[in-house]
């Protein structure tokens, strides 16, 4: 493999590349899914290949292949340079990636129990037990239980002298119960919706989730929702559960701080951002209790690694400090663009903060969320509810939509409860809340403490063309927001 890497770098330089990097990625994914008591499938997916990224004639080129041979390395490196030269036909300025980054080292996800060493029988036993517990609840029409385990080994090398080897291990799991009434369908999920919760941890994470232990509760809630009252239409106080806060961070903070979006390179697909550069350091994004970081060093986070896919070390970056917008997620190229635009400042260094990641060997790295976190506040959840005279507690995302500058959002949750006189009262179905991002975060007056803080994993963040799915993390605890518009679809 080393010969493939060295030959690719060598050929790229011989063909005229002023910079080249090579990533070789070997990924193994094991997936298990039980549906309605039947094992839908157990699969083992092995994927391996390499990508060569170059700058030639001042423009980017990238080519990739699954054939790991020296001859293919030569072909792909030459193709990457030819593609860069085609890109250069319409360039406006040479690509500037700043000073060289020279890194050497290894990183491995620290895990207690290797999930690939756990027998499949044991994994199936957990899934079948959870599935059976859900189906035992009268009124449940469909159930699903799944696990996913990933081991990704990648080697990064560049013409600047970097050589980095990493092994990232992920474990994920989730269950879902569907109740169907005469004209109503209700779903409950655990630990999170849209399939699963996931972390860079081992089998110990799956055991901590205790899928069978939580299965009866969510199935009963799904059935109860069929006859619950709809969420009333009102402007009121809302307390969001931790996983919904995580989704809110992801959509309304994580995406708009991607500096490639800000500079327009995602405009035709993912959109742009309302957090334009002149706002950096000055804009009031949220209230004073809102503190947000992008932290790729958090143990267990789904966006945790040793180095990004440009060979830049993992970092912790302030994004919002006491409500003020103070930082972007950057790449080598966009960090230089920002420096040229704004000049140096406490918020602008011209150096990447290490957020470039590709979804595989056949994709170019893009700025992706690492672990974007709302830092814990001081409240216990019980005290926060007791402190709320009137409002609605919503939990677990059901639908999410936000405009292409990340301002107007509308999120639906699986379940809600009315808060009256400091107590959770009747269950409410089909709850939806909507707002404008900075107005919403400025209305946040309380965040729960570290006891309630979980690094939620999002294994399905889409961006880029060709499309890429990134794995991101979001540390979050329940939080309270005032004057929020809520309603229901039915």
């Amino acid at each position, binding site marked *: 493999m080393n010969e493939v890497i060295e030959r690719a770098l060598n050929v790229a330089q011989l063909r005229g590349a002023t910079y080249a990097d090579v990533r070789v990625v070997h990924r193994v994914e094991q997936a298990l899914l039980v549906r309605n008591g039947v094992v839908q499938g157990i699969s083992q997916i092995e994927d391996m290949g390499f990508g060569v990224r170059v700058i030639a004639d001042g423009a980017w080129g990238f080519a990739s292949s699954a054939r790991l041979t020296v001859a293919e390395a030569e072909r792909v490196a030459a193709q990457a340079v030819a593609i860069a030269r085609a890109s250069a036909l319409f360039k406006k300025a040479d690509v500037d990636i700043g000073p060289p980054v020279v890194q050497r080292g290894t990183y491995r996800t620290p895990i207690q129990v290797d999930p690939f060493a756990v027998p499949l029988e044991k994994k199936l036993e957990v899934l079948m037990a959870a599935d059976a517990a859900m189906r035992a609840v009268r009124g449940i029409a469909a159930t699903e239980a799944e696990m996913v385990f990933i081991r990704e080994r990648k080697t990064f090398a560049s013409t600047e002298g970097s050589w980095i080897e990493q092994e990232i291990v992920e474990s994920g799991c989730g269950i879902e119960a569907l109740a169907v009434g005469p004209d109503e369908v209700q779903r409950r999920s655990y630990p999170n919706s849209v399939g699963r919760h996931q972390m860079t941890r081992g089998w110990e994470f799956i055991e901590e989730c205790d899928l069978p232990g939580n299965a009866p509760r969510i199935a009963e809630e799904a059935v109860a929702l069929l006859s619950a009252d709809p969420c009333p239409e009102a402007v009121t106080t809302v307390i969001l559960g931790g996983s919904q806060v995580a989704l809110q961070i992801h959509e309304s903070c994580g995406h708009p701080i991607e500096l490639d979006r800000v500079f327009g390179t995602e405009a035709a697909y993912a959109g742009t951002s309302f957090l334009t550069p002149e706002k950096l350091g000055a804009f009031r994004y949220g209230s004073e209790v809102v503190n947000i970081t992008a932290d790729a060093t958090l143990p267990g986070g789904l966006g945790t690694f040793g180095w990004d896919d440009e060979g830049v070390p993992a970092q912790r970056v302030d994004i919002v400090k006491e409500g003020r917008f103070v930082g972007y997620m950057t790449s080598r190229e966009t960090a230089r663009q920002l420096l040229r635009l704004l000049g140096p400042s406490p918020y602008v260094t011209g150096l990447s903060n290490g957020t470039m990641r590709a979804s595989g060997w056949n994709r170019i790295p893009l700025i992706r969320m690492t672990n974007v976190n709302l830092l814990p506040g001081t409240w216990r959840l019980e005290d926060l509810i007791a402190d709320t005279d009137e409002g609605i507690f919503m939990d677990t995302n059901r639908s999410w939509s936000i*405009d292409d500058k990340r301002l107007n959002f509308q999120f639906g949750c699986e379940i809600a409860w009315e808060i009256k006189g400091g107590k959770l009262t009747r269950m409410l179905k089909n709850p939806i809340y909507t707002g404008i991002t900075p107005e919403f975060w400025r209305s946040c007056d309380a965040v729960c403490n570290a006891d309630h803080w979980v690094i939620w994993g999002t294994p399905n963040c889409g961006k880029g063309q060709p499309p890429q799915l990134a794995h991101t993390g979001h540390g979050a605890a329940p939080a309270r927001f005032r004057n929020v518009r809520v309603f229901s679809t039915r």
Partner: protein
Amino acid sequence: MLGEKQIREILEQALRASPADETELVLEARDSALTRFANNTIHQNVAEVNTEVAVRVVVGRRIGSAITNRLSAEDLRRAVEEAVALARLQPENAEFPGLPEPQPIPPAAAFDEAAAGATPEWRARAVGAVCRLAEGHGLNAAGALSTGLYEVAVANSKGVFAYHAGTEAHFTTVVMGEEGSGYAHRAAWRLEDLDVEALGRSAIDKALRIRNPRPIPPGVYPVVLEPYAVEDILSWLGYAGAGALAVQEGRSWMNDRIGRPVMSPLVTIWDDGRDPRGLPLPFDFEGVPRQRVVIVERGVPQGPVYDTITAAREGRPSTGHALPRARPQTASLGPLPLHLFMAPGEATLEEMIQQVDRGLYITRFWYTRLVHPRDCVLTGMTRDGVFWIEGGEIAYPVRNLRFTQGYVPALAGVRAVGRERWRLSEGFGCVVAPALLLEAFTFTGVTEF
């Protein structure tokens, strides 16, 4: 490109070596490239060669699967062995009907030498022309142009062997001005069917028409939808309810509506994986020939599409709409229609606008998500060109709105269908869609631009 002969040899060798009772192999090969541009310059230019083989084995009624992107006989043998080992660990799947038997599969033309051979220079020049035009108008163009070829083959131990080679070319652009943007997109399998410059000009024209967009209050308005917005409606109707699994589980918009007139008689929707006006793939991922399935006829839902297992539950044959089954998360979606067509009408866009006294003209929807499955209720934003219609004419541009609307009730109020249809692929699969004039569409919010 591997070619049918080599693929047949690879798959047949792997089938012969399998110790399972039944074995299925699905090979997908892709040689593709994409040129991406923004700020009127190319910022990303990529190419990929990859082949993936998905193995599904049956031992008794136990099923296991494995996927590899390594093609040597030894790698495939190992993948089959892994799948067999996984199958042996599983409980029996009592309702599994067995892998499909061979059926004749007439080929479908979908390969174009020009699309297969498009170079990075051709893509750069095509994109460059759009960027220069945009720049000449003081606008900012972004987008992507992709070209490539793919091969799909399905072989199983009961004698199925299906092979298809096709090409694809896609172009998308968003052209932005100070106060708004325009959009254009098309998919094709013949390069000559993709007029990149003309698409660029249409997006530029739209962007130039957006000056001082005004806010309008949320409410219920008649709408003229360009085919881009109609693609979203058809895609979601297909994804969220036109597959048999959703109907069998009672979570489809079709439940309790099959055979009843619930949409306008102007609405006829079908799926056809063989029609060259779409992006043909004549068989599904179980090697079953794709049937033309009418999903809605003159406003009346007719029924969903099937794969082998959902069809067996109802004692009927598969319609050839299986998704790849080796990945459990994909398999759990059940069968889906990925080649949707809507019947054209008689109206031009101008004639539809003339029929509206007070309403909205909408280019496309953005970030749409299912809020409730039974009426196929979606929320999403408008994007890249919204205009107020007054007295049968476009009056002025308006700011983007958020909608929350059931797509089934929306199609009950179709007043006119466009005569021209566009081949689009921004949703799930390929959709051939006309423009629509709808009586009422519910907008629940506004944004700041």
